[in-house]
């Protein structure tokens, strides 16, 4: 069973009243009953990892590469979701003195999405700076997968260390 599927089962298990255990005051039980419904889960499957990069040479991770960032969205079958990103322009060296940065960029083909199955090769290309609207899969696979790559351009004099930043993906249930 997939991890989100297991999570859904665990969630249901947590919400099912158990004999012999206190259910708290009536109000809290009512609220719990209200929130039982279709769950929505956005799971980060992997971060965008460039690994070690040579100084002075641009390095690109394609969305199809092993180092690409990846998400899985699970929700209502056939539901539309809007996907947008907040993308960094500079990465920060967290081991060096403040001010040590590295440019990062994202192109028109740096992201992909696929309905239902975790198959980046068959996925639809989109520009992460623009975003896209995707559709979750049918009842058997109510998933949507997203991948993102990018390009970093370390200067020839880049200080050694770990450069990092944050990509924010926003998933709006429509």
């Amino acid at each position, binding site marked *: 069973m997939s*991890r*989100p599927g297991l*999570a859904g089962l*665990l*969630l249901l298990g*947590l*919400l099912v009243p158990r004999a012999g255990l206190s259910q708290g005051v009536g109000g809290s039980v009512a*609220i*719990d009953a*209200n*929130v*039982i*419904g*279709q*769950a*929505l*889960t*956005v*799971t*980060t499957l*992997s*971060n*965008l*990892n*460039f*690994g*070690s*990069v040579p*100084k002075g040479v641009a*390095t690109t991770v394609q969305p199809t590469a092993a180092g690409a*960032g990846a998400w899985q969205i699970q929700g*209502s*079958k*056939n*539901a*539309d979701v*809007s996907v947008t990103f907040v993308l*960094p322009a500079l990465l920060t060296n*967290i*081991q060096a003195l403040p001010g040590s940065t*590295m440019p*990062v960029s994202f192109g028109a083909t740096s992201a992909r999405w696929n309905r239902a199955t975790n198959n980046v090769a068959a996925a639809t290309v989109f520009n992460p700076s623009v*975003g896209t*609207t995707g559709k979750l899969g049918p009842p058997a696979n109510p998933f949507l997968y997203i991948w993102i790559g*990018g390009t*970093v351009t*370390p200067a020839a004099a880049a200080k*050694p*260390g*770990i*450069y*990092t*930043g944050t*990509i*924010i*993906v*926003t998933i*709006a*249930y*429509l």
Partner: protein
Amino acid sequence: MKPTRLSMVLLLWAARLGAQGVVIAPHAVFIDARTRSGAVLLYNPNPDPAEVAISFFFGYPATDSAGRIVVRTVEHPDSTSPSAASWIQAFPRRLTVPPLERQTIRLLASPPPGLADGEYWARLVISAKGGQLPVTGVADTAKVKVGLTLEVRTIIGVFYRKGAVRTGVTLSGLRTAVVGDSLAVWARLTQQGNAAYIGSAHAALLDSTGKTLAELKAPIGVYDAMEPRWALPIGALAPGRYRLRLDLSTGRDDLAPELVLPSPPVRDSVEVRVP
């Protein structure tokens, strides 16, 4: 912490990096004016704690020029907008969900006095990030290593209903075009009443005998006027005349029936010619 030790910590954290995410239920919150409260449950199925922040804004699904459904954000809604974003609060607004535990976010509405009957909307933003750091590799401080953390913001709808609420939809401008192996379908949908039309769209391509050759079912929310585009996979269709039928109904199997406002079904159809 020395760089080498920090690298070792990063290595250890990254080595046990698994899937990161928070389960959110439900995916739409309906608040009744009599109780003025609602709740969202968060569950962290992962081995690391998840940091969560909650916020609101006013927006609703609309369509862009290509017929794609997007969230239209209204940063400064005027007094006529059905916005509840400024008077619904979440408690807590920041929290950490421990591994394998659940937390409940309480929503409390404090509407202005004299609020007219109707439905008011807000979008709830749930920002979640795990405690992981992104970089893998050996602890070698002479190298340049790069990794980006992914943070997730999930947006769900919040609906505040006061008094008599009613909804409906009108359907016009139904048209089609064969695009590759799909049939593109457009229609203009306009919300009626004082509440959003939350329902389902069912498009079916029929032959001359009424047999269904292709169909598509999709949830739909109509908050204003919109012109969505759907694509029915039809494969290689023989030349001839067909009929595209579009049905809109308030049936939704992902929402409890008592939460869905009923409205009579709406139907239209149009001829499709394949040369």
